[in-house]
């Protein structure tokens, strides 16, 4: 291991000389405090190091030690239910070690080396294995079976493999390769800046069901897709991200809190062990990994936190799981990049961001996907990436938002005006889009109901129409509209208030199954059609608006999923109400 000397300290950037043998992106230890840093630029034997911890108190002349290793994460049973900082140090253990505040120079492994796991082999001695094959499994939590895979550089014949209680460092199997025998432990390391290999990338085609009506119905994301949620402050980005982390039908959730509020991570830590996954009935925490670099934690580690998170997510994808990664917020990551770039005195691009901002963002989102994993069984895994973007002033023309929009396939545009009137989720239905719509339509029509896509199209048309009609109303007043148009306005309002509006804090409303979503939307649109027919039959418009069944429709969102009869009864109620109205109108005419 080499040793260099600090020559300059400026914020999170340290320049050291005497590091001619070091490699780019190698991890170094800075000063006797052994702060963790990473080499991000080399000029001759001078290296620029971004330091992942506060640098106050460092000065020229202090030593820098190289480690020969790139920045890596440790991958093994024990990841689930953990909370890590940006460079995979467990925050719970840090608290045990140093108390309430995070001090400097703490060295802790990301994985508990002592804990024993029950390893159950899936192959037997004599089997030939290739990279990615599953050697055995560990029941990591009640819902996650951790699959121990053959490392990517090992191929050969299994010589020994044992069932039993092992730590992650114990040898669980030996494999005879052409270069000799390899001991296999459950623990592997992977450099965070390199995507993990897979056999083949496939186009995504299955929806990620989130239970959020506006997302599932209008702007769905596919398992293996990439979505972004830009919005000004207070528009509910974090609530959207939390809701997805809670209710998305993923096997594994990796949640990266990047430069955001400490209390938000605390909230996840408090809620997730209590909230039950509607599919498994187990606490949500049992499938969740948290990475937290809150906004008061060192800025350089913020840059790393995104990569730490996605590498762990890829690892679970390789096991054949559907994984979703939430990154909140990628703008803070980009700002960390900008800060370091500024200190390196690089020529800035737009708004001071480095010129390579766009390619870094694209590389990150491109790590999402549906893949055929390595290994002979050809299992499939997906990694969905959902990134929040915090554009200054909510202005989407800024570089981070623009670079993200170029690569993300789904755009949920949050709107401050909607948020101000407490319409949550404040996803603007006119701005947002999903490029997966067509691809997922077939699947949804098959699994939910054949009219799923038609309902969506009609509802969307009504919302578009509303925007145009509103314009007219603003210019000449409501009286200028025909009765039919007024009905359309009322229906659009009902779609907005009774369907799109969803209360994340209401015990029933927080999650809606696809089947119930369809029923709700169908009720609203059926009402519209019946109302049109009734108008044809000369029923008074105001009478239709006063129908009690409108209230029943509005309250469908609060009816629990299991009360199917109550949900379905609305259609009968509607029929009766309208036939009474039409009859009454007809009666008057006769009289």
């Amino acid at each position, binding site marked *: 291991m080499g040793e260099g000397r600090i020559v300059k300290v*400026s*914020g999170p950037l340290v320049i050291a000389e005497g590091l001619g043998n070091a490699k780019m992106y190698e991890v170094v230890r800075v000063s006797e405090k052994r702060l963790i840093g990473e080499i991000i630029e080399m000029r001759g034997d001078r290296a620029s190091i971004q330091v992942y911890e506060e640098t106050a108190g460092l000065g*020229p002349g202090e030593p820098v030690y190289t480690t020969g290793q790139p920045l890596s994460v440790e991958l093994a049973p024990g990841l689930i239910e953990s909370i890590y900082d940006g460079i995979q140090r467990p925050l719970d253990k840090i608290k045990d070690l140093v108390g309430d505040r995070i001090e400097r120079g703490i060295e802790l492994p990301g994985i508990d080396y002592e804990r024993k796991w029950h390893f159950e082999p899936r192959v037997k001695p004599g089997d030939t294995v290739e990279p990615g094959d599953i050697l055995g499994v560990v029941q990591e939590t009640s819902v996650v079976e951790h699959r121990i895979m053959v490392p990517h550089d090992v191929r050969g014949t299994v010589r020994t493999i044992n069932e039993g209680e092992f730590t992650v460092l114990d040898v669980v199997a030996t494999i005879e390769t052409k270069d000799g025998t390899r001991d296999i432990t459950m623990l592997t390391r992977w450099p965070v800046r390199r995507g993990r290999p897979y056999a083949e990338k496939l186009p995504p085609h299955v929806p990620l069901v989130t239970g959020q009506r506006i997302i599932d119905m209008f702007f769905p994301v596919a398992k293996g897709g990439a979505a972004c949620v830009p919005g000004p402050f207070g528009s509910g980005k974090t609530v959207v991200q939390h809701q997805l982390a809670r209710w998305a039908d993923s096997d594994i959730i990796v949640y990266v809190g990047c*430069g955001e509020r400490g209390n938000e991570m605390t909230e996840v830590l408090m809620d997730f062990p209590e909230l039950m996954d509607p599919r498994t009935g187990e606490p949500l925490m049992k499938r969740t990994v948290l990475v937290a670099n809150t906004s*008061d934690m060192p800025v350089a580690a913020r840059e790393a936190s995104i990569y730490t998170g996605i590498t762990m997510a890829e690892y679970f994808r390789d096991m054949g799981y559907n994984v979703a990664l939430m990154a909140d917020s990628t703008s803070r990551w980009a700002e960390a990049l900008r800060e370091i770039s500024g200190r390196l005195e690089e020529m800035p691009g737009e708004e001071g961001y480095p010129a390579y901002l766009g390619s870094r963002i694209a590389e990150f989102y491109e790590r999402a996907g549906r893949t055929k994993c390595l290994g002979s069984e050809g299992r499939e895994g997906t990694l969905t990436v959902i990134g929040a973007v915090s554009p200054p002033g909510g202005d989407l023309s800024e570089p981070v938002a623009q670079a993200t929009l170029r690569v993300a396939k789904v755009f949920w545009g949050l709107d401050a005006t909607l948020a101000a009137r407490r319409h949550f989720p404040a996803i603007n239905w006119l701005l947002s889009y999903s490029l997966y719509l067509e691809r997922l339509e077939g699947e949804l029509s098959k699994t939910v109901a054949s009219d799923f896509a038609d309902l969506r199209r009609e509802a969307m048309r009504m919302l578009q129409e509303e925007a145009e009609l509103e314009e007219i109303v603003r210019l000449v007043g409501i009286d200028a509209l025909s009765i039919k148009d007024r009905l359309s306005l009322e229906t659009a309002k009902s779609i907005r208030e009774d369907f799109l509006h969803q209360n994340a804090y209401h015990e029933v409303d927080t999650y809606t199954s696809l089947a119930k979503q369809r029923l709700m939307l169908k009720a609203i649109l059926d009402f519209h059609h019946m109302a049109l027919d009734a108008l044809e039959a000369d029923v008074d418009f105001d009478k239709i608006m006063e129908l009690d069944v409108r209230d029943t429709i509005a309250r469908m969102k609060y009816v629990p999923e299991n009360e199917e009869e109550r949900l379905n009864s609305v259609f009968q109620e509607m029929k009766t109400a309208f036939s009474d109205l039409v009859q009454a109108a007809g009666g008057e005419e006769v009289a």
Partner: protein
Amino acid sequence: MLKEYRTVSEVAGPLMVVEQVEGVKYGELVEIEVSKDEVRRGRVLEADGSRALVQLFEGSAGLNLASAKVRFLGRGIELGVSMDMLGRVFDGFGRPIDGGPQIIPEKKIDINGNPINPYAREYPSEFIQTGISAIDGLNTLVRGQKLPIFSGSGLPHAALAAQIARQATVLGTEEKFSVVFGAMGITFEEADYFISDFRRTGAIERAVLFINLANDPAIERISTPRMALTAAEYLAFEKDMHVLVILSDITNYAEALREVSAARMEVPGRRGYPGYMYTDLATMYERAGRIKGRKGSITLLPILTMPEDDKTHPIVDLTGYITEGQILLARELHRKGIYPPIDVLPSLSRLKDKGIGEGKTREDHADTMNQLYAAYARGRDAKELEAILGEAALSEDDKKFSKFADEFERRYVNQGPEENRTIEQTLDLGWELLTLLPVRELKRIREEYIEKYLPDTESA
């Protein structure tokens, strides 16, 4: 004996370069002897070989390159803390200015603090009753929250902050409570308003004040809020007190930050503010909160005057991204004579959901809050329409909503600077206003609450 350097080679704006130094550390506190009886302070911004870049807190006027003596103190900026700080007034650098004796510190703490481990945080969930309906009812404040007041020049943010400091209580508890006030670049009159108000109500006994006035050195402001927060952390997490920190005005702080950044010729972010301003503000704001196993708490109310009332200005914008909501004051309401002129629609308290409801305020709180918001938003829309097309263009329902919006501003938002409403009064007032609307429009409220709480008066 510390080494003294007479090697100042350059002074420009708030920055100074010292050459041929040894063993200088980044972030270290620096003393500059300008003359026999004047010592100023600075901080190392960059340690580059034998060259140190120093930020001067008290300006460079009168500084002579040849005669100035520079000492590097080998430690960061520290604040000596003790319980005797309560009732005292300090300058922006922590020196007493009320004529009282020096504080004999119990200990000295680096003012930069270490980040709180998110795992050690306790989620804030205790309702603070401020006695102000627009806050308690709609933008509920909880202990350990950071909730800024976005104001504009000429708006009564000082009166509002003082009223909150005066009235804030947590229901059903008798706990130790204190106020820490950090003034950055505000006028004498504004600072005096707070001090006299604290004196008048006796709050001064349990208050600590750090005052950097508009004519005090601008760069000193960079440490003032950190001084205040360090004192607050000591009181909250070591002495079990519930501390309310008021910082006024963050806009002046950010400008001082920009001045240093510009002098260093850093690549600027938006509007010339440094790219690291988000991180810098966050390291202050995030010091608010609660910690597991500790009794005390820090609730932070920073005040910002929005330049040109622009909510997208970087200072306001970045603050909004870090804090847990915002209270927005509106000029229009102020002109209508409404106090406090809180525009409830863009205001928000992110932590309210965990602080309200049964056992905290009342079971119907969340539903009525959402309903009042939605109704007021619709009422405002209706009024806008009315302004263009006249009242006749409104539907019957819209007329009711329009009337509701007026009454809501006049009776709910509006209240006296000395009026202290209980949460029950606020909630009941909300229900009373909701009677102005047709019951079928109350979609956001559970039926059982409508039956239980809606007053029987037949609405028009």
